[in-house]
């Protein structure tokens, strides 16, 4: 096939992806950027300016909300990793065949129902008249109903639960690729449990850890339902602010600016995380 024919094939093969990217990612973002730079000066009157962005930096409320969201998301990511790593290690290294498939499926099952239903499940468990409170009273550990819902801890539980699969999948994949003889070799050479994990298992799993963390962090940061439903009056979340700017305040301009800021700031945090862990995006995503 000649060169131009090859190029045509390539273009045709890429076309669906390109159309998808342009129509659903690039164009909307350009639109958002454009809207965010429109400064409202009166009824149906707009002019170009950065006033919407200044609102974010001048109003501590918005800045603080973003920080709160970012810190909670990082914490949720860390917790998910902490819980997900042993689970993934168990699935990838200590089980074989059927039980491996079954365990993997168990991780998947919660995702067969919608996020809303999953979150309501937690509400049923955690609410004052819910199962956990009732159980504690039943076994005598509590004398009256306890409210577990509507606080940051409840948000955290919800975020970790929602994110678990997205941490476990990349971790299981990378840990699966770790040759058992590598671990045995490390033991054979005198390594103990801690040093084998620190020097062999974790460095090997690093690409999986990083890609899992990026996904979980972005999912948590962009989550909307979980903080609202489980957080109650403490539900302040940056996406909630964007939602309310767009939907209840009719302030698309500010909402768009918040959206762009979320994109830029979350990218910055991911970039910083990659730098700190000494990983690159190509290495983690490329594997």
């Amino acid at each position, binding site marked *: 096939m000649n060169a131009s024919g090859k190029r045509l094939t390539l273009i045709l093969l890429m076309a669906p992806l390109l159309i998808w990217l342009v129509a659903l990612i690039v164009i909307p973002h350009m639109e958002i950027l454009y809207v965010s730079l429109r400064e409202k000066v009166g009824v149906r009157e707009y002019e170009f300016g950065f006033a919407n962005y200044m609102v974010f930096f001048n109003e501590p409320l918005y800045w603080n909300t973003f920080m709160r969201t970012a810190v909670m998301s990082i914490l949720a990511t860390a917790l998910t990793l902490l819980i997900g790593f042993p689970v993934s290690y168990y699935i990838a290294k200590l089980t074989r065949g059927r039980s491996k498939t079954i365990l993997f499926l168990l991780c998947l099952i919660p995702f067969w129902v919608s996020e809303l239903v999953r979150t309501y499940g937690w509400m049923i468990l955690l609410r004052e008249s819910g199962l956990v409170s009732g159980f504690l009273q039943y076994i005598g550990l509590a004398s009256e109903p306890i409210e577990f819902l509507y606080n940051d801890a409840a948000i955290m539980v919800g975020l970790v639960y929602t994110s678990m699969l997205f941490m476990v999948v990349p971790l299981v994949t990378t840990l699966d690729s770790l040759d058992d003889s590598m671990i045995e070799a490390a*033991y054979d*050479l*005198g390594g103990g449990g801690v040093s084998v994990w620190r020097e062999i298992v974790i460095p090997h799993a690093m690409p999986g850890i990083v890609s899992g963390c990026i996904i979980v962090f972005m999912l948590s940061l962009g989550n909307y339902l979980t903080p609202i439903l489980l957080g109650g009056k403490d539900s302040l979340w940056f996406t909630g602010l964007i939602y309310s700017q767009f939907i209840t305040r009719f302030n698309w301009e500010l909402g768009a600016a918040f959206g762009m800021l979320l994109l830029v700031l979350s990218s910055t945090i991911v970039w910083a995380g990659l730098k700190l862990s000494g990983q690159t995006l190509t290495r983690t995503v490329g594997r």
Partner: protein
Amino acid sequence: MAEAVNDLDCRDISKNFAAFKAVRDVTFSVPPGTFFSILGPSGCGKTTLLRMIAGFLEPTSGDLLIKGRSMLDVPPNKRPVSMVFQHLALFPMMNVGANIGFGLRRRGVAKAEIAKRVEAVLERVGLPGAGPRGVDELSGGQKQRVAIARCMVLEPDVLLLDEPLGALDLKLREHMKIELKQLQWEFNTTFVYITHDQSEALVMSDQIAVMNHGVFEQVGTARDLYYNPETAFVAGFVGESNRFAGKVEEAGGGTLKVRTPSGLPLMGTAAAGSLAVGDAVDVFVRPEAVRLSPTSEGVAGQPNVSSGLVDSVLFNGANSRVLIRDAATGGEIDVALPQTGEFHSLKRDDPIHIGWDTAQTLCFAAAGEGS
């Protein structure tokens, strides 16, 4: 001086996986400085045995001693043995120096001392200055040497090698056989080497144990195994052989007369134990023990003679072979092609005469089992 202590002693060691007996009452000793190979087909239990020595598996029964000390309660990271894995298991997240220094770091050796010892061992394996290189930058043979250096830097009493040449291409494998032997000689450490490749075992080893179905069939030097196999399995597994089944017709004076089902009479020697008239036997004749001649006079006087047509000539330089279709029985006999020039023009359908000696015709009682 006290009696020399063996580097490795296995006493009646067994390993069962549920109902399956992978290793059955294996006993052997390896004196210091020996290159000891365990040779066997896959599934014979050799890997299980090696992993028990390394400490990754616990024996079901029996004892295992290194330098006279029982290792049963010693975890793998505390045993004075090191292992070179089948795929080497070099740590890809570390450079060569860090790979080799891993064990020393675990022992808490000072940094400067580690650097010194790593460089020293790299020099001994012929890779001076390779410390900062990445594992992926090395060739297959270099990786092999790094894997050995990584173990040898810890100065183990016994080095275990789990078919480390298996992943290499043929040419490199031939080269590494010699190199491994040299390294063993240079470090003067006991090597326990498992393989299913007889040529690796024959070339490198001081002692070879042939293993089958969880037991040692025979332990000895390469020569012993080749010329004096004690069991039919060893005779068949080590080296090439023409194999005949038959029944003993006459026995006496160390010579047996055996007749194959197709009626071919064979004069042979009982290799192990005594055989009586009527016993079913397996008979082995090495290709290089068979003499070729264009005329019947050329093989006259040989106790076993036959004639046939050349079925095919398998030319392979010094290892060339001729397959001969026996005129009497129609069976095929594999004969080494002498390199004297006499048979250079031999071709298909040429008539040929063959003959061989009684002493080269080894008879074993036929194995009762189907294998």
